């Protein structure tokens, strides 16, 4: 049950605005079919009949993702889905990226985490609109959550929307949110074989950012090997090496991002 309003939404995703305790929105998972009546009396067919469906399991998510995509395109919003394991530095990357983009383009952020509004509070300190989606027990954002968050906050024309997905290198790869591109972030404290161990994410990504390069002298991580592994899985992957903490390598990333924003 929701501890704020008492409504029953066990495990359902909830959207919060940092610093506004009175505000929260439940992402409605309508149509689960769980309350459907199952009236078995009166049917006389003793043999079942087979009905072909040939339907993609993620059809509903994909349809909603396309609606999001249409909205983003109409408003010339560049929507980027940031994906990584927990702790690879997605929020720090956004904290360092947003101030460099803000003078030129409006920026909004959707933060995904299972619990807390901590990340959204960090982003709010930058003075940009941000909503936090808490997925509860969910391990990824889906198109419905993003749709609801976007409708709640509204987006400026010609802006950048950063969607920071739940820290997880597996499930979020499957769920299209309607973004223009997926960027996967890995850090040098992980392993240079990560692209081979979690290929689904790297196959889906448009770009990969290797973060925390300032720690390279202290860890047994070979950036070249990691890059080769990533490109083995996805030959079209754009590759960046930087440290969000020290700013090293940041210029190349910011220039690339600005060039993508110009095209919007």
């Amino acid at each position, binding site marked *: 049950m929701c501890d704020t309003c008492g409504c029953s939404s066990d495990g359902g995703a909830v959207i919060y605005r940092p610093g506004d305790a009175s505000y929260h929105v439940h992402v409605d998972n309508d149509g689960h*079919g769980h309350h459907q009546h199952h009236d078995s009396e009166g049917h006389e067919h003793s043999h*079942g009949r087979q009905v072909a469906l*040939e339907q993609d*399991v993620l059809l509903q998510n994909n349809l909603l993702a396309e609606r999001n995509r249409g909205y983003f395109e109409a408003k010339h919003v560049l929507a980027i889905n940031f994906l990584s394991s927990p702790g690879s530095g997605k929020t720090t990357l956004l904290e360092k990226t947003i101030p460099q983009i803000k003078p030129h383009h409006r920026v909004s952020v959707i933060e995904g985490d299972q619990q807390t509004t901590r990340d959204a509070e960090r982003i709010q300190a930058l003075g940009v609109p941000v909503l936090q989606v808490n997925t509860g027990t969910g*391990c990824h954002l889906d198109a419905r959550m993003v749709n609801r968050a976007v409708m709640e906050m509204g987006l400026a024309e010609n802006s950048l929307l950063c969607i920071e997905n739940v820290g997880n290198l*597996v499930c979020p790869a499957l769920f299209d949110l309607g973004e223009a591109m997926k960027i996967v972030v890995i850090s040098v404290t992980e392993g240079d074989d990560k692209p081979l161990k979690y290929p689904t994410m790297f196959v889906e990504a448009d770009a990969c950012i290797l973060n925390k390069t300032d720690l390279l002298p202290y860890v047994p991580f070979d950036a070249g090997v990691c890059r080769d592994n990533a490109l083995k899985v996805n030959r079209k992957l754009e590759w960046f090496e930087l440290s969000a903490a020290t700013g090293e390598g940041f210029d190349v990333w910011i220039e690339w991002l600005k060039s993508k924003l110009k095209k919007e």
Partner: protein
Amino acid sequence: MHEMSIALSIIDAVTAKAEEEKAGKVTGIELEVGRISGVQSESLRFCLPVAAKNTVAEGADLAIRETEPAGKCEECGRRFPMDGFFARCEFCGSLDISIVSGRELLIKSITLE
């Protein structure tokens, strides 16, 4: 575990179809799951009966056909089996490979009563 939300999506689609067909019960669900789709058949087998509880699909038999990954070489056009996401073309050695099978996640059919 995303298999639970996948299972809920499957049940949503199946119950919607059953309603459209005015069927009172779903007795069978046939799925096609690629080996590199990112979804574990075993987890799905565990989650689906839970997701189907109190719906017209409760108790339905589940048939899952797993498809093997296969690639197509973009240079020589030939197809061959793969064991993951990447491979070198068996015929010409190119690395420009498209995955043509193994990522399916489909509801093939349902059996209604």
